[in-house]
Structures are given as structure tokens and as C-alpha cells.
């Protein structure tokens, strides 16, 4: 064997190993992306419902869809929320295949995915749904086209312990900020921690600033900022000042800077669920989270959200510039990838149908969005959240979702610094401007 032969052999060996390695790397599942071999179509569906009842619910929905559409296989998988949102979905979208229907949080993130050409424009296929849904579909739209549909939408408010309120002699629920300050003092006097906040996770603390911004800024200013990332209006500073004053009343649990929102009895949701704190400002998912924590802590699979739970809207502020009936909220939806087969839109339409949405409300996993399905909501507190949603003139999407992860992350960090006594109302806005400059 001469040198050339040896080199050739080496090259062949190298190619062989490379091909073998690549083959091993290729995803095991195939048949997605409408590569339709024959009549069989497989839809890959990723969502964040890792816990019951949502996990089983989506599996049922997938099965029903398969039964109604012979030849269609639905592979539905649940992933942990942050992993799914930050790592799995972006990585999979970049490969340009292998994922059809996926969880979509909307707004800033949706815009980035659409600009990259990863999301299917479904405007023509879901026109009916969009008409029926009305305003809540906006976060899943971009540039006049629809790129996804929500199945769950709610607003943030105070979840509170009615028994502890009674114990502290508080009558009714706070309607104005001054009422809230009074309630905080009454709770402190009764030796009860007024509010638990999971500032360790960032966003739960940031929600306070969002609410104050909503009370200070007009909807027009907020909507404009969402488009051009200009935060020059004085109302953004005012929000920080209102928050600074609120933090000054010292209403939060001890060590809140390291408190997580949803993990275990020590988290803010856990403290409310176990009676260690009287209030928590949180989204509509909170009863489900508390039920889960109580199940883990007690080992009782059937543990339910605490009986003593009540809900009230974020109080109004006298003389504030913002729309007093505006609410802060957000939801969950699904998008179809740009390469998904037509069956993906069919599945999405099925998920958002009144029938499935009504059942979604019945299991208590959230607040269905399709009009006509609200009759399914059995939980009293979720009914209250829904009433709050329906009575609000304007719903502002969570500001971090609306601004996208880059500006949103910097904003949340600035707000948490204020909670920790290191920031200022100015530094929050500076953080947002600096982050917007790096976009």
C-alpha cells in the first residue's frame, strides 16, 4: 500500500465515521414538517403543562384529535417552563424541523421568532377564532397577521388569606392604595407578615412596578413604548417613586430577596398557602401552584388550593394619570412552526374550540379565552379574576413579555435592585434604555 492508498483509506474511514456520527445525531422522530410519507402525518407538540391536571388534559386532547383525524399522529410532550421557553424551543426552531405546535408566550418573543421566519402566518385559517376572541389575541399577532392563539388568559391581582384578614380586623378588601396601606399596618399590628413576594425570581417583584406603571401611564404611552422602546415619559419615573414608597412601608416577608415564587413551602406562594403570609400579588395561575405545593408538602395527592383564599384587584390610586380600570395580565398560547403541515392549524383550532375550552375551565387549570366557555369555570376565585378581566377597559400584557427578554430582563433587574435598597426610580428606566440600545 502506498501513501496515496493510505490517505484514501484514511479519508474513507473518516467519512464513514463522520456519516455514522451524523446519523446518530439525527433526531429519532421523523415524519414531521409535512414531509408526509403517504397519508401518515405526525405532529410534534410541546407545552409546559408538566403537572396535573394540565398534563393529562393535553394528552386527552391529542388523543381525541387523532381519533377524529385518521392518519394523524400527535406526539405531545411536556417540558419544564423555563427550559422550554429559553432553551428547547429556540434551539429546535433554529434546526428548521422537528417541531410543529409549541407553547407561545407572545409579544416580544413572538416578534423575534416571526422576524426569523420560524412561525406560520395562520391569519386565513383562524379568522373566525380571532373575531370571537377580540382583544386578548393581540399578543399573538404581529404586523397585522396572526401567528398563534391563546388558550388561557388572566390578570394579576392580590391573592389573600380571608382568615388572617379577619384576625387582623380588616373589613372588606382594599379598594385604594391607602386602604392597602391600612391593611398592611393592621396585619403588622396583629403580628402577621402582610405580603410574601418571590423577589428571588425577579418577575414577581417586578409585577409591583408594572402595576404602578399601569396606574401612572396612559394606555397610549404604554403601547407606544412597546413599539419604539422609548421610556422618556415621566410616568415611568413616577411608577418607581410609587414603588419606592410602597417598599418603604416594609410589607414584605423576611429575606424576600432570596425567596422563590413557586417552589416549596418557603416560596411566596407556599407562604400564602400555609398561612405564613396574608397576601401575594400574583397571576391567575396561583391557586393551581398553591394546590401543587400543598400536595407536595402533605403528600396528599388530592390536596386542593386552600379554602381561605380570596382575590382582589390591584387597588386604585387617587389622582393617578393611568386608566383606573386597566388591568395587567397575560396568557398562554400555541403557535405553529413555519414548516408544520396544515393539520397543525386544525389541531390549534380544536384546542381553542368552545368545547375544549369549556373543559379547560372545568379542570381549574386556568381561565379559558373563547367566549362561551367561561361557564366551565368552577373555581370561585377564578370567576373573580374573570370578572376583573371582563370589567377592565384595557389589558396590558406583562411588561417583560411585552418588551421581550432583553429589555424585560434588564427592567426586572432594576426593579429588584430597588426592592433591595440599591436602586432608584431612575436606575430602572436607565436599565431599560441601556438594554434597548443593545437590541
Amino acid at each position: 500500500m502506498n501513501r496515496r492508498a493510505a490517505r484514501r483509506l484514511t479519508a474513507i474511514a473518516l467519512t464513514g465515521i463522520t456519516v455514522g456520527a451524523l446519523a446518530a445525531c439525527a433526531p429519532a422522530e421523523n415524519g414531521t414538517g409535512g414531509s408526509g410519507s403517504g397519508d401518515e402525518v405526525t405532529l410534534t407538540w410541546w407545552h409546559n403543562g408538566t403537572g396535573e391536571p394540565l398534563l393529562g388534559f393535553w394528552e386527552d386532547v391529542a388523543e381525541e384529535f387523532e381519533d377524529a383525524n385518521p392518519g394523524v399522529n400527535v406526539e405531545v410532550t411536556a417540558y419544564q417552563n423555563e427550559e422550554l421557553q429559553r432553551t428547547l424551543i429556540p434551539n429546535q426552531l433554529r434546526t428548521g424541523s422537528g417541531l410543529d405546535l409549541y407553547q407561545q408566550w407572545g409579544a416580544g418573543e413572538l416578534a423575534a421568532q416571526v422576524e426569523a421566519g420560524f412561525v406560520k402566518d395562520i391569519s386565513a385559517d383562524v379568522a373566525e377564532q380571532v373575531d370571537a376572541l377580540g382583544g386578548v389575541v393581540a399578543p399573538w399577532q404581529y404586523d397585522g397577521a396572526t401567528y398563534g392563539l391563546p388558550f388561557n388568559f388572566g390578570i394579576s391581582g392580590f391573592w389573600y388569606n380571608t382568615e388572617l384578614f379577619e384576625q387582623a380586623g380588616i373589613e372588606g378588601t382594599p379598594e385604594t392604595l391607602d386602604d392597602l396601606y391600612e391593611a398592611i399596618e393592621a396585619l403588622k399590628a396583629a403580628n402577621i407578615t402582610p405580603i410574601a413576594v418571590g423577589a428571588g425570581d425577579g418577575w414577581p417583584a417586578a409585577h409591583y412596578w408594572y402595576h404602578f406603571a399601569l396606574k401612572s401611564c396612559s394606555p397610549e404611552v404604554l403601547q407606544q413604548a412597546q413599539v419604539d422602546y422609548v421610556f422618556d415619559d415621566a410616568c415611568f419615573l413616577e411608577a418607581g417613586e410609587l414603588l419606592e414608597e410602597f417598599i418603604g412601608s416594609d410589607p414584605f416577608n423576611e429575606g424576600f430577596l432570596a425567596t422563590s415564587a413557586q417552589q416549596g413551602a418557603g416560596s411566596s406562594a407556599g407562604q400564602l398557602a400555609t398561612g405564613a403570609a396574608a397576601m401575594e400579588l400574583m397571576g391567575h395561575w396561583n391557586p393551581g401552584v398553591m394546590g401543587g405545593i400543598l400536595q407536595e408538602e402533605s403528600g396528599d395527592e388530592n390536596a386542593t388550593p386552600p379554602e381561605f383564599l380570596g382575590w382582589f384587584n390591584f387597588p386604585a390610586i387617587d389622582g393617578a394619570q393611568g386608566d383606573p380600570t386597566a388591568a395587567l395580565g397575560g396568557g398562554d398560547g400555541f403557535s405553529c412552526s413555519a414548516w408544520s403541515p396544515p393539520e397543525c392549524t386544525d389541531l390549534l383550532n380544536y384546542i381553542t374550540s368552545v368545547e375544549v375550552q369549556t373543559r379547560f375551565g372545568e379542570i381549574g387549570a386556568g381561565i379559558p379565552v373563547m367566549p362561551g366557555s367561561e361557564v366551565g369555570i368552577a373555581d370561585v376565585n377564578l370567576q373573580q379574576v374573570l370578572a376583573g378581566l371582563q370589567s377592565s377597559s384595557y389589558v396590558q400584557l406583562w411588561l417583560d413579555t411585552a418588551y421581550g427578554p432583553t429589555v424585560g430582563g434588564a427592567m426586572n433587574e432594576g426593579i429588584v435592585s430597588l426592592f433591595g435598597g440599591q436602586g432608584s426610580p431612575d436606575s430602572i428606566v436607565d436599565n431599560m434604555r441601556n438594554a434597548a440600545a443593545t437590541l
Partner: protein
Amino acid sequence: MSLSTINAGPAVSAAGPAPTPPRSSAPARRRRQRSGGALLIWAFALPALLVYTTFVLVPVALAAVYSFFNWNGLGALDRFIGVDNYARALQDPIFLGAMGNNFAIVGLSLVIQGPLAIGIALLLNRNLRGRALIRTLIFVPYVLSEVVAGLAFRLMLPPGGPVDSALTAIGWSGEKPLWLADPSVAFWTLFAVITWKYLGFAIILMLAGLQGVPEELSEAASIDGATWWQTQRYITLPLLGPTIRIWAFLSVIGSLQLFDMVWILTGGGPLNATETMATYMVEYGNGRSQVGYGSAVAVILFVVSLVIALVYQRIVLRRDLRGAITRG
């Protein structure tokens, strides 16, 4: 080495006085030998080389490319911004703070964990009842997974949690520090947990090193009237040198790349007090969808670690590595 021996044959015969038929066949034989050897080397090295290239070199190169772009991880890589990402990182007080934390942990590990490990290893190297049990117990934290250990401490350290209760039980009745929630305390809590976690490894390493110190030397020293302290100071410690230098190397690299324990215990908080370069990288690159910027941070972390590792090997480990590396 075998190659050069074989090659020497024909070379010597070539120097011979008369050109003979074997001479003409010599180059062919030489070539056959050489290419056969090359094939063998390739066959053995290729799988490892392939894995190393795919999972180490290519990602490092890709990160270097990404770091020159403003890229959110989706879409096309089309916004070249030169070294802006690097400039931004090196001007960001939070990143500089994270880097400072890394170097503080490097320094504290060397100054506190090192002497502590040597001291305990010297103690455990004496005849002691229950020595095997103590050695095992000391090594347990190192065997535990980082996530398990981190979560355990997270559950024990909240205000009024098990640690506070234990402290009250042993007589500390006053207010306890907020172990994880106070920015001025959290770093020290983190360092204590890291020390608890990795001290066992250092001790085992030192104990292994002590096995290589001949008993005769300390016997001779004690016959000459040396005290126990003098024996340790002038005989054991110098002979433990190579072990200490290797441990310090591992400790420095581990401290620079510290991630998992911090991520689980504090997530870099409160108020970035426990941020390290690696947690900062994940927070910005992944959490805030700035993959280009995160890549720049990754490259900085890589370069810092590489430079320190190379300098350390070149200067401190030079004597220890002599003979271990064959040069052609």
C-alpha cells in the same frame, strides 16, 4: 521513537560504500513502514479527535464567531458589531463584579481550603481510632450531586429555617443573618457551602500524597530529635509539594468556572452578590436572548481560564510535569 530507529537502518546502509540492490528497495520499505504507522496512529486517534473536534473545538470556534455579532439566537447572523460585545462586558459593573467574585473564590479557596485540607490530612494520617470512618464521612459531600447539595442548603438556610433553629438550640438567641437574602452575607454563605462540598476532595488528594512520603525520613528526623511539627514542616510538606500544586491547579480552574452550586443556591443573587462569570453568561446569553453577547462572555471566561492554566503549568507545574511529557 520506533519510527526513527527503523529509519536509521537505511540511512546507515546508504552511507555504505557500494550501491547495492537493497538500496533501491529501501525507500519503498521505508514508505510502507511510515504509512502503516500513520494509519495506525490515525485509527487510534481519529475517534477521540472527532469527538474532541465536534464537541470542544467547533463550539469554541462558533462561540468566537457569534461573539462578534448582535444575535438573539434566532434568525440570521447578519449584524456584525466587531468587538462591541467585549467592550460592553468589560464595562459592565455586574460582569466585573462577577469576575471579582470568581477571583475572590480562587483566592479564598487557596488560602482557606488548602491549609485546612493539609491540616486535616496530617491529622488523619496518624494512627487514630475510627480513621476510616472519618475519612469516609469527610468525602461524602464531594460524592453528593451539586444540585442535591445545593437544594438541601437552600431548604435549610431561609430565615427561621433548620439552620437558624439549630443555632438557636445551641445558644445563639439573637437575630440571625439572612444567609442567602442579605447581599453582604450571601457570598460568604456560598463560600462556606463550596468549602463544605470540595474540602473532602482536597483532603483525599492530600492523604494520597502523604502515602508517598517515606516513613523512614520522619523516623530518621525523630531520631535526630526533630519534633512532630518540625518533621511536618521540613519533611512532609516539601514532599507533599507536587500534590499541593496539582490540587491548587484544579481548585483555581474549578473556582473560575464555578456555576452549578451558585445557580442552585442563589441564582447569582441577591442583587448579583454571588454572580460568577458562568452564571452571568447563562443569565444574559440564555435568559435575555443575547446569544452574541453571552458568547463574548463565554470567550472571555475561556481565555481567562486558558491563560491562567497555561501560565500555571509553565511556571508552577514545570518541575512536576517534567518527564511526563515526551518530546520528539
